[in-house]
């Protein structure tokens, strides 16, 4: 019973915060709401017996990537979104169109949920096949990461190096 309550609470926070992220005018508020959504997702990972992923989510996403976003929003003094005049009269932004579009999107979500819920083998409870201790074990995770997935690990490290160099070069001023 407390598990179901925790799941619904985290799910509600995640979905609610995400909807507010895309609905906010002020980008600073969007960033903070997204951090709240990431916190809720971290709670869901803990429920799925993945404590390392949960903590990594907080460290990497909420603690590093979002700080980067926050810095950029602050340094650019990101203006609030004002739709230009020609944007306001764009045919896809008329109220009728947006209402129908939202309705269709809602229908799509309901269909997807029904389809996912009806697949019989997916209805099995989550903690079926192996116990929490081995799935959540950091030792096993490290062992698997460095033996079976070594190539992906090394390739990712090169990717981060390239991204770092690329970001520094792209954000440099022209006269330097």
């Amino acid at each position, binding site marked *: 019973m407390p598990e*179901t309550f925790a*799941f619904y609470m985290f*799910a509600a926070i*995640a*979905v609610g915060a*995400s*909807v507010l*992220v*895309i609905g906010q005018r002020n*980008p600073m508020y*969007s*960033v903070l709401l*997204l951090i709240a*959504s990431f916190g809720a*997702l971290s709670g*869901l*990972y803990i429920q*799925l*017996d*993945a404590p*390392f*992923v949960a903590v*990594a989510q907080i460290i*990497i*996403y909420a603690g*590093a990537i979002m700080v*980067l*976003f926050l810095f*950029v929003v602050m340094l*650019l003094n*990101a*203006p609030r*979104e004002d*739709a230009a005049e020609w944007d306001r009269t764009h045919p896809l932004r008329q109220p009728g169109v947006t209402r129908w579009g939202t309705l269709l999107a809602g229908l*799509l*979500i309901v269909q*997807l*949920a029904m389809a*996912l819920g009806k697949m019989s083998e*997916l*209805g099995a*409870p*989550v*903690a*079926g*096949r*192996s116990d929490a201790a081995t*799935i959540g074990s950091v030792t*096993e*995770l490290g062992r698997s*990461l460095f033996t079976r*997935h070594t190539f992906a690990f090394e390739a*990712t490290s090169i*990717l*981060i190096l390239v*991204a770092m160099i*690329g*970001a520094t070069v*792209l*954000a440099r001023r022209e006269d330097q």
Partner: protein
Amino acid sequence: MIPLSYYLILSATLFAIGTAGVFMRRNLITILLSIEIMLNAVNLSFVAFGRAAGDLDGQIITFFVMTVAAAEAAVGLALVIALFRHKESLNPDAFTSLKW
């Protein structure tokens, strides 16, 4: 016990919200944030599937997804800074000079 389908429905909802944000918002930073929402939704379904299959591979894939997301956010924001410096606007419709 929470069935797997609950997690998948949640992941699909978050992915849909992220996609809606990418299409509807006219602010480059909010578009990048919506992409992050999508990547997180995918992470959630990976971990859920991994747990249901009793395997660690789901969690390992999430590390790579997180790392790629970090790299992409860094480069994306560097591009945003460079674009903003050029045109003082964060509206993607302002950068249409390559259109025919």
